[in-house]
């Protein structure tokens, strides 16, 4: 009898196994609701909470206090430049002392402040004069003007870097302007009627302002990454892999109840027993993915979040979803073969999934990981799945582009299922 005939001959028993396991799952309604609702809630909450942490959003801004007793060029230049920065909301406090500013920060009113000292503009002007007069550096009287930044330790470091960069640019611009004004005055006096005003370098650009071009798989889709594009696939994958916990526990319960023993006294092939359990969990995985994607597309925008852009390759998404689910199910079944108790299976599989998730860029995006951790991420099947989803969502990829990740997940699934079947048959 050919292999195909044997498989088809076992189909009625396989169907009966699927029906049995589906009934068992459907009768545990609380657990079923948990499987389906929890991941959706996670995606909603995290996508909204992390909305401003991703991408180039105009709303991603933070407040900065500018405390100044100077009202001239330095203060004006700094305030004008910071106000022009879309990531910074400027509040100005005139005549505030450093002590007051520190007190406000300790009270939590501000997380970061710029201190412009008294007479900063005058000091800067004198220093420019010395430089233009050719006074050697070691003989100059005026020190560089010290504009300071006070920051709360809990403030995100990237916010500090944004402010420091913007401030440096603003001060550089002020210096250029003061230098041009004084040089202009010197030239007017020395050239007399031959004087021609210097061009305003601030208004004359030598370089095109740099702006990142996002590299995509095709030239038609250009989607700015948002928190939902990280969170929706990440939490879909985590939810899929977390099903390994109930899957392995249900398998061990079946063993503890003696049902596996009884089945082994019959002529039921291992794949019928294991496959019967895999199919309902596969369906749950697909429902999880569909509901998370639907909520991310239709519900999240209603709550003020970004809409998930699904890309242009629905078949690639289906392929990835199926491969990720099979990988998760294979892992759960393999765990259940080796765990002695349900408690052991639950704790081992949940801990392992969390480690794979942390490693694979699910909990923390890979982009913010150091290079070593980014290279280790390749060890996690969740990372493969996430890369595949991001290929479709962000980089405009299709089936061909997600094929490497899909093959990886399928190979992982085949390995786990193979180990489980051999163990079930008592061969390993």
């Amino acid at each position, binding site marked *: 009898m050919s292999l195909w005939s044997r498989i088809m001959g076992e189909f*009625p*028993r396989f169907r*009966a*196994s699927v*029906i*049995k396991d589906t*009934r*068992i799952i459907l*009768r*545990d309604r609380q657990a079923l609701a948990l499987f389906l609702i929890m991941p959706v809630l996670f995606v909603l909450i995290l996508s909204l909470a992390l909305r401003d942490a991703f991408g180039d959003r105009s709303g991603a801004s933070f407040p900065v206090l500018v405390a100044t007793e100077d009202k001239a060029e330095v203060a004006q230049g700094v305030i004008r430049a910071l106000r022009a920065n879309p990531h910074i909301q400027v509040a100005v406090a005139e005549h505030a002392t450093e002590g007051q500013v520190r007190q406000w920060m300790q009270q939590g009113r501000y997380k970061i402040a710029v201190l412009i000292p008294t007479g900063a503009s005058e000091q800067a002007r004198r220093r420019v004069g010395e430089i233009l007069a050719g006074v050697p550096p070691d003989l100059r009287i005026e020190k560089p003007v010290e504009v300071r930044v006070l920051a709360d330790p809990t403030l995100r470091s990237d916010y500090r870097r944004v402010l420091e960069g913007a401030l440096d640019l603003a001060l550089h611009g002020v210096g250029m302007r003061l230098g041009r004004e004084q040089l202009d005055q010197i030239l007017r006096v020395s050239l007399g009627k031959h004087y021609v005003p210097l061009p305003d370098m601030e208004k004359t650009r030598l370089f095109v302002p740099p702006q990142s071009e996002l590299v995509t798989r095709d030239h038609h889709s250009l989607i700015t990454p948002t928190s939902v594009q990280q969170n929706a696939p990440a939490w879909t994958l985590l939810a899929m892999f977390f099903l390994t916990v109930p899957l392995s526990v249900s398998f061990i319960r*079946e063993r503890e*109840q*003696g*049902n596996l*023993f*009884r*089945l*082994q*006294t*019959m*002529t*039921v092939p291992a794949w019928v027993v294991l496959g019967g359990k895999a199919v309902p969990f596969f369906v749950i995985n697909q429902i999880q993915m569909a509901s998370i994607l639907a909520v991310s597309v239709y519900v999240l925008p209603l709550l003020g979040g970004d809409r998930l852009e699904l890309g242009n390759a629905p078949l690639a998404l289906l392929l990835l979803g199926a491969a990720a689910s099979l990988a998760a199910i294979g892992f759960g079944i393999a765990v259940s073969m080796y765990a002695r108790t349900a408690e052991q299976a639950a704790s081992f599989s949940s801990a392992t999934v969390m480690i794979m998730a942390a490693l694979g860029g699910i909990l923390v995006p890979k982009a913010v990981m150091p290079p070593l951790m980014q290279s280790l991420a390749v060890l996690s099947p969740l990372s493969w799945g996430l890369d595949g989803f991001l290929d479709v969502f962000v980089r405009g990829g299709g089936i061909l582009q997600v094929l490497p990740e899909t093959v990886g997940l399928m190979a992982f699934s085949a390995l786990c299922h193979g180990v489980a079947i051999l163990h079930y048959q*008592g061969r390993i």
Partner: protein
Amino acid sequence: MGVPCAPALQIAATGQGRPAIEVKDLVKRFKPDGSPALSTLTLTVPHNVIYGILGPNGAGKTTLLSILCGLLKPTSGSVRVGGLNMPGAAAEIKHLLGVVPQEPALYPTLTARENLTYYGRMQNLTGSRLEERVQACLDLAQIGDQANTSVEHFSGGFKRRLNLVIGLIHEPQILILDEPTVAIDPQSRLLIHQRLRELHAAGVTILLSTHYMDEAEQLCHDVAIMNRGQIVIQGGVQELLGAQRDEVIQIRLDRDPPPGLSEALGKLHEVGDLSLSGRCLRATGAHTDLAALALMQALKDAGVRVESMGYGGSNLEQIFLQSIDGDDRQ
């Protein structure tokens, strides 16, 4: 009980004229250099008997049953079931066997009917045949009115009844039961006993592992007592009881025994096993007359009078206790 149970009992009796189970020089080691769980064990279960496997915990009963069911491979020795060699013909043998595990192997959230239907499907029953067998098994277990109730709501007795009939769903020729009546109510126990007798009458060979000696004595035609991986006694129940009958001395004392009497009597070298329960003293000895004389002398020395004395009254429990070592009796 008056329940129509004919469908469950239409067993196709094949293999007549040869033993249902033949085990020869069976050895099972779980570790290559470990002590054997089964040690050169030889056992013959005739066709159409109820055969009891008795023994203390760790005697090797479950290992033996697991090998017979095809779940474990023997280290050496031969096993034939229904005339077929294990493990070569394991698949064919599994069709002949019905297995009833010690703990009810059921899906708690499924109903009784769903459990039976599922296991029936796993035994390759389909369509109307499956429906017939499910109904027959529900009737046989007398749980027809609870057929659509989740098993988790069943009493222990109902679960054991269902556990038994699941093993019968495909009408096996050989039924292997591991402690089928542990911790159940007397009514369910009686029903299971009755069903086993009916199955035997219908031609089924039954291999029964049990701790209950009275159950083995009532049900089994033959028994094998196992200890430390070996069979220490085997044979027909009546023959074993008859052979041992004259070796038991029963003495009734005229008053409650004084402290230390049991220990004093236990030291008599003419006396084998001894039990003292209230005023009833039961003892065995290789030579019962010498043992009786020694006992009476010792009782006299202890100031206890004998109210009555007799011989015989041996039962399977005493044979069981005599056949295993003192340490195992604990």
